[in-house]
C-alpha cells in the first residue's frame, strides 16, 4: 500500500502525505466553491473546472496561504498615532512551476463586527519589504503600494497582489514579505488615547492575514476555447 499511496499522492500533486500540525480555518469562499462543485456533480451539471466563477478568474487550484510573519515592536514608531506594525510573509514556493498565477488576493481580517465603539478611524499602509533584514533588525519598509482609510477597526479588507506575487514567484529571493502599518487617524485627546490602546490591543489580537492564490495548470486546463469570430 505504501508504494501505491505514493503513486496516488503524486497523482494528487503531492510529494508526501501532509501531516498538518495545526488546522487552519477554511475560508468561506473555498467552502462555497467546494459545495457548489459537489452540488453540480450530484445534479450532473456541466462544470468548467478551470474557471473560478465566484472570483471571475481562470484557475483549477486555489490555495489559501496563511501569514507566517510577526509583529514588530519598534521603539521609534513612524508616527505618534501608530497602532501596530507587522511583517506579513507568505510561503509562495508551494506553487509548482507549471502553474500560472491568475489571482493573488491579500485578505486582512481586522476582527469581528463589534458595535460598542465604532471608532476610531484607521489608516492602513502596506509597503513592500525590499531589503533583507540584518539579524533581528526591524525590516525597513520599501515602496508604499497601499494607503487606505478604514472607518473603524472591523471587517475584512482585500487587496490585489497579483503583480507582486508574480514577481515573487519569478524571483523568490525578492519575497521578503510586506510591511503593514496601521495608524489611528485624528488627534489624541485622553478619550481617544484610551480607545487607541484598547483598539490596538484588540487589533493585535484579532488581525488575521492570508493570501488567496489561484493558479491554472496548463497541463490540466487547455486554453479557454474562445469562439473564433
Amino acid at each position: 500500500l505504501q508504494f501505491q499511496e505514493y503513486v496516488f499522492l503524486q497523482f494528487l500533486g503531492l510529494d508526501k502525505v501532509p501531516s498538518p500540525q495545526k488546522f487552519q480555518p477554511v475560508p468561506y469562499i473555498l467552502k462555497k466553491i467546494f459545495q457548489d462543485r459537489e452540488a453540480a456533480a450530484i445534479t450532473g451539471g456541466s462544470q468548467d473546472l478551470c474557471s473560478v466563477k465566484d472570483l471571475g478568474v481562470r484557475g483549477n487550484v486555489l490555495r489559501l496561504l496563511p501569514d507566517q510573519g510577526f509583529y514588530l515592536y519598534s521603539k521609534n514608531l513612524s508616527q505618534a498615532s501608530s497602532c501596530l506594525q507587522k511583517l506579513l510573509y507568505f510561503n509562495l514556493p508551494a506553487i509548482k512551476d507549471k502553474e500560472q498565477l491568475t489571482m493573488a488576493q491579500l485578505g486582512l481580517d481586522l476582527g469581528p463586527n463589534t458595535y460598542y465603539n465604532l471608532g476610531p478611524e484607521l489608516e492602513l499602509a502596506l509597503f513592500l519589504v525590499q531589503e533583507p533584514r540584518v539579524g533581528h533588525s526591524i525590516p525597513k519598509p520599501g515602496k508604499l503600494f497601499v494607503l487606505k482609510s478604514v472607518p473603524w477597526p472591523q471587517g475584512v479588507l482585500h487587496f490585489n497582489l497579483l503583480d507582486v506575487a508574480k514577481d515573487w514567484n519569478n524571483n523568490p529571493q525578492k519575497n521578503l514579505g510586506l510591511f503593514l502599518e496601521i495608524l489611528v487617524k485624528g488627534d489624541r485627546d485622553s478619550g481617544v488615547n484610551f480607545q487607541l490602546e484598547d483598539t490596538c490591543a484588540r487589533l493585535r489580537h484579532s488581525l488575521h492575514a492570508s493570501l488567496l492564490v489561484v493558479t491554472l495548470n496548463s497541463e490540466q486546463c487547455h486554453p479557454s476555447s474562445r469562439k473564433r469570430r
Partner: protein
Amino acid sequence: SAIPANKASCKNLCHRHQLFINFRDLGWQKWIIAPKGFMANYCHGECPFSLTTSLNSSNYAFMQALMHAVDPETPQAVCIPTKLSPISMLYQDNDDNVILRHYEDMVVDECGCG
C-alpha cells in the same frame, strides 16, 4: 451466418460496479478536509460479441469481439469507463496552506466495451 452468442449471464457482463473510496481507510482523514471520500466505482465484466451491438461500445470493440468470436486467440474487447466525472478536494498541506483542487476523471459514471 449468425454467430451463437455465448450464454454469459447478465451479472458477468460489462457494467459499472460501486466502489466508495473512504479517505479514513487510507489514514488520510487528518489532512483531507472534504470530502470524507467519494464514489469512484469501476468497470468490470465480459464483452461478448452480442453486447457490443447493444451497450454504448466503440466500433473497434465490435470488430474485436467479432474477431474473438471467429478466432479465440484474438483477445476479447474490454470493459472500460465511457463516462467519467471530476471531484474537488479541500485539503491542508505541510505548509499550513488550505488548498482546493479539482481532479478530472475521478468518478466512473458509465461503462462500455472498448
